[in-house]
Structures are given as C-alpha cells and as structure tokens.
C-alpha cells in the first residue's frame, strides 16, 4: 500500500504554509499563494531585465526578442478574441502567463499552484466575471440581459445555467488535468526515481501544462468573443 501512501501524502497534505495568528485559520496563506508570489516576482524581474534601456533605434537582440514576443502574444490573444474584444487582450495574456508559469512549476519539484482548487476557482470566477463584464460593456445591461433569451426564449434557463457551468468546467478541467499530471509524475518518480520520468516530465509538466493554460485562455476568450458580439 505504498502507492496509497504516496497519494495520501500528495493529496491530503496540509496546504497551508503561513499560519496567521488570527482568524481561526481562515486567513492563512496557502502554499499556492506564496508560490504565485514567487513566480510573479520572477516574471517581474524578467520583465524589468528585458525591458530596461529600450531604444527606438539600433535595438539590441534582447529588445528585438521582447518586441517580437509582445507582438506575437498580442496577435495570438487578439486572434482568439476577435477585433471587438481586443480590449481584453492584456487580461487574457496575463492569465496565460499566470497559468503557464504555475503549470510548469512541477518541473522544479514543487506542487503546481494550479493543483490547489482555490487558485483554479479564483481564476474561473475572474474569467466568468470578465465575460459578463465584457457583455455588459459592449451591449449595455439591457442588451446583456436580453442576450440570455437568444436565440430563443426557451433556452434561457440553459443560458443562465451556463453562468455556473462555464466557470465550474473551466476550473475543474484545469484542476483535474494538473492533478492528474502531478499524480502520475509522483507515481513514476516513486517507481523509478532516476532518468525514467524525464520524457514523461516533458509531456506532463511542460506540454500538458502549456496546453491546459492555452485551453483555459482559449475558452475564456471564446466566451468573451461570444459576449461582445
């Protein structure tokens, strides 16, 4: 039953990292929050390194890379959002960066922040709020409310249900994928600790993590695109 022990250790461990002396445990910081701080700090430092001393002429390779990257990723986001929703490109890109960073955390031997249900719930909530805000902003409150009865009034309850189903599916898909990948990786590492997990790590930690980040962002932008049309 050692596999069960591994699973228990991985899944049932206490996620709390910083205990607050007040609030009866409700104000504690989970590991995922602290990990997010870490990678946000790393991203911030990288951004500062890459964007300092930018020039208009005679640009360095570093600057050319940054400009190319910015244009590419913005093109990607706008391509998913459509022309009408391009105000939300920055939000989409920051979610993408957040998810990509946290999903590949498994490479460094830590539990990815997205394996914490709190994080995925928060992301899904922010996403659905953004979708509805985008709908209200482009159509007005009336138009937004009327859009629930599109294309016919009969399916209005379904559309209202989607308000709950969409974030639930977003959050559960992300959480489940990362959980599954991490569990499989832990089991593999438990079975053969050296060498063998490397190709699997390439798939589960990098490829799957990035794909899931892309899918999350893709679905969010699909919903936003639908809302602003």
């Amino acid at each position, binding site marked *: 039953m050692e596999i069960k022990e591994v699973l228990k250790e991985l899944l049932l461990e206490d996620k709390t990292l910083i205990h607050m002396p007040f609030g009866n445990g409700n104000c504690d910081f*989970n590991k995922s*929050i602290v990990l*997010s701080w870490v990678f946000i700090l790393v991203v911030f430092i990288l951004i500062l390194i890459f964007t300092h001393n930018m020039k*208009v002429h005679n640009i360095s390779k570093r600057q050319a890379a*940054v*400009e190319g990257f910015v244009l590419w990723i913005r093109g990607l986001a706008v391509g998913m959002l459509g022309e009408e929703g391009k105000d939300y490109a*920055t939000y989409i890109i920051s979610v993408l960066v957040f998810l990509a960073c946290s999903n590949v955390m498994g490479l460094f031997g830590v539990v990815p922040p997205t394996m914490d*249900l709190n994080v995925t719930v928060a992301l899904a909530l922010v996403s659905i709020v953004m979708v509805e805000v985008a709908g209200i902003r482009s159509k007005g409150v009336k138009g937004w409310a009327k859009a629930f009865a599109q294309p016919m009034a009969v399916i209005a309850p379904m559309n209202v249900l989607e308000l709950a189903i969409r974030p639930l599916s977003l959050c559960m898909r992300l959480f489940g994928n990362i959980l599954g990948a991490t569990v499989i990786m832990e089991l593999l590492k438990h079975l053969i600790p050296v060498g063998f997990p490397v190709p699997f790590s390439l798939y589960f930690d990098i490829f799957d993590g990035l794909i899931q980040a892309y899918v999350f962002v893709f679905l969010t932008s699909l919903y936003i695109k639908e809302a602003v049309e």
Partner: protein
Amino acid sequence: MLNVNLWNILWTVVNLLILYFLIKKFLFGRVDEILEKRRAEVEEASKAADEMIEEAKKAKAEYQQRIELADEEKEQILADIKKQGYDEYERIVGEARKKGEQIVTEARHNAEVENERAKEVYAAQLADMVVEAASKIAATKHSTAQDRELYDKFINEAGAGK
C-alpha cells in the same frame, strides 16, 4: 484536497491583478511606447518622402512644360529658317531670272545695235561701191556691153558683200 477557502481565492485574484498590472505597465507599456515612437518616426519619414515625391513631380511637370515649350520654339525656329531659306531661294532665283532677262535683253539690244552697225557699214560700203562704180563708169569709155558687164559685176559684188 478539495477544501476551498474564501481568503485564498481572494489572494489568488489579487495575485492575478498584480500580474495584470505588472504586464500592462512594464511589459506592454514600455514596448508600446517604443513601438509608438517608432511608428511616429516612420510616419514622419514617410510624410517627408511623400512631400519630396510631390515636389519632384512638380519639378518634373515644370520641366515637361519647358521641354514642350522648347519643342514649340524649335519648330518655330525651324519654320522660320525654312521660310527664310525659301525667301532667300526665291530672292536668288528671282534675281537670277532678272539678271538673265537683263542679259538676254542686253544681248538682244547689242545684237540689234550690231546689226544696225553692220547695216550702216554695209550701207556705207554700198555707197562706196556705188560711188566707185559710178566713178569707174565715169572714168571709162564705155559701151553698152561694157556697161552691162560692169553692172553685173557690181551686182555680184554687192551680192557677195551682202
């Protein structure tokens, strides 16, 4: 594993917002600033280039006009020269004709004068001859036969002298 805690959700949202503002301010803000500057510069340069092209077009049109004018002028000059040449030709030919006519007239006149003169000379000779013949007749004793012969001779001489 499935416990959800409101504070942690809130903190994640805050983290996301922090990342959003960092990316917006430091990555996109800076890169966009540079791109905007470059775009403005390019626009300015292209505007200047447009202006220059416009100017060049204007200059070209001007030159075209000038060339057309020059063409016209050239034709004018050519026509003038041709006209002048014709005039000159006409003049020369006219002069030549006039001269020829003059020459012909002079020649005719000369010939007439010459003729006149020859006639006069002939007449003088004839007179001389008549005088001579008369004096000969007068000088010699003469018979009818002799007279006849003399007349014949005279007539012959006159015929030959003619």
